[in-house]
């Protein structure tokens, strides 16, 4: 494409954008709305994922040591454990600490009811391990189980499975909603663009009458779509970012950890994604609708 043609397309597109206000407004706002809904959903997913990850990483493995283990032995073993690649953090809890903790849970009245008092100390020394990554659980459990000092392991299998289930669910929901919303947005934007084209079919007919090729007719429309998509994304981004902190604040009051763990980089990436989507919506919308161009060209009366 020659530079002259490109510059012609550009001026054409900009002139059209200015002169057909309603059409521009409708397309831009449709793109913006689609992206805000999409973006709001992605933000939510991102936050929930971060939240679940946080919860999972809170889950610990408790290693019960044999009854006759000395505290010094426990500490030596702990140092070995801390060096393992799976382990983020590990801590020795002496039997004294453990029993104190147990009785400080005000909700669990069962121990008192069965007549056990803090003065008895039947609890073993334990080591609590925090994992770097919940996926490493199996590997660490398999390793530690065989150690001579170890009596038993406990790692809240149920909780783990539940979180894994929720992650799976979240992923499943995310995917279907993204697909649903994405297709819907695409379809609505496509229809909007098609309608604007239909509104301007006379224009297309006249252009073709004076010898414009299909691509010459399409050029300005595509640039228009691009610009509209761009403006739509800018508006969507502004709306999303300006309401983000407000909304996350509200949520954080209700759910712990919410909104933690979203970095600026992630926000930036999301924004970039939205921009890409806006552009794609605009351009693909135009391109798809412009396939019809030949239908228009034969209805001069």
């Amino acid at each position, binding site marked *: 494409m020659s530079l002259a043609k490109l510059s012609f397309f550009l001026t054409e597109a900009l002139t059209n954008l200015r002169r057909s206000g309603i059409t521009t407004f409708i397309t831009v706002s449709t793109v913006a709305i689609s992206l805000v809904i999409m973006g709001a959903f992605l933000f939510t997913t991102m936050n929930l994922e971060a939240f679940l990850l946080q919860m999972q990483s809170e889950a610990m493995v408790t290693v019960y040591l044999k009854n006759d283990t000395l505290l010094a032995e426990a500490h030596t073993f702990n140092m070995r454990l801390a060096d393992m690649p799976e382990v983020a953090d590990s801590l020795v809890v002496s039997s004294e600490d453990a029993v104190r903790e147990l009785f400080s849970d005000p909700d669990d009245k069962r121990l008192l009811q069965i007549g056990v008092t803090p003065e008895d100390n039947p609890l073993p020394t334990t080591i609590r391990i925090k994992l770097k990554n919940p996926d490493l659980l199996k590997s660490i459990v398999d390793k530690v189980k065989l150690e001579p000092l170890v009596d038993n392991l406990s790692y809240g299998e149920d909780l783990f499975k539940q979180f894994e289930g929720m992650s799976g669910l979240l992923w499943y929901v995310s995917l279907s909603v993204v697909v649903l919303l994405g297709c819907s947005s695409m379809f609505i934007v496509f229809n909007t663009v098609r309608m604007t084209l239909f509104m301007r079919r006379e224009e297309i007919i006249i252009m073709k009458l004076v010898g414009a090729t299909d691509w010459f007719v399409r050029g300005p429309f595509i640039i228009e779509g691009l610009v509209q998509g761009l403006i739509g994304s800018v508006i969507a981004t502004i709306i999303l970012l300006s309401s983000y902190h407000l909304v996350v604040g509200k949520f954080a009051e209700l759910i712990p950890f919410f909104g933690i763990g979203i970095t600026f980089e992630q926000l930036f990436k999301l924004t970039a994604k939205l921009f890409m989507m806006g552009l794609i919506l605009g351009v693909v919308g135009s391109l798809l609708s412009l396939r019809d161009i030949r239908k228009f060209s034969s209805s*001069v009366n």
Partner: protein
Amino acid sequence: MIEIQNVTKIFPNGVRALNDISVTINKGDFVFLVGPSGAGKSTFLKMLFREEIPTMGKILVDGKDIVTMPESRVPYLRRNLGIVLQDFQLLKNRTVAENVAFGLRVVGVSDAVINTRIQEALEQVGLSHKRRMFPTELSGGEQQRVCIARAIVNNPLVLITDEPTGNLDPMISDEIIKLFLEINMRGTTIIMATHNEKIVNKLRRRVLALMDGTIIKDEECGTYAYE
């Protein structure tokens, strides 16, 4: 230059607008196309720039068959033609000058050339003072003249005009005809469908008369009368 061989056009609704028409138009001809309302004049003209495709028959322009021509070549065919339709078609959101310029932009003419050419064409139809107005701000006759300016601005090989003086007063009609004669002198073939008896009878050029889709008269120095 233009050869029409046994062309028949039947519209989807069954109307037979043209019925086995054969005619040859030579380079430099000035042809009036006359006939009653609904005779098939507009259909005949639309055939020449592939706006309508004949149901049967062949149309050769410069030796090329434009019926079987691929869709992608049609724009290049049209760039050599100047077209004025019966319902003047102007881009509503573009000024008069931009409308006239469009045919030149399509071909990629430089801005400077475009400006002088627009100015010239608009002067020829007497509208250079309205170059910055939009079509909706013009009277019917003025719109028709903008279409004429757009059709002549690219020095077409063939000028195809459908009732170009239908909305013009006699004086301006005469001027437009004078302009057409000038253009014709310079070698442009002109085909003009018209109901304007006075002009046809005064000019005494070739007259093709259509009636119910058939050519009923083809005279070299003809008059308007048919039947």
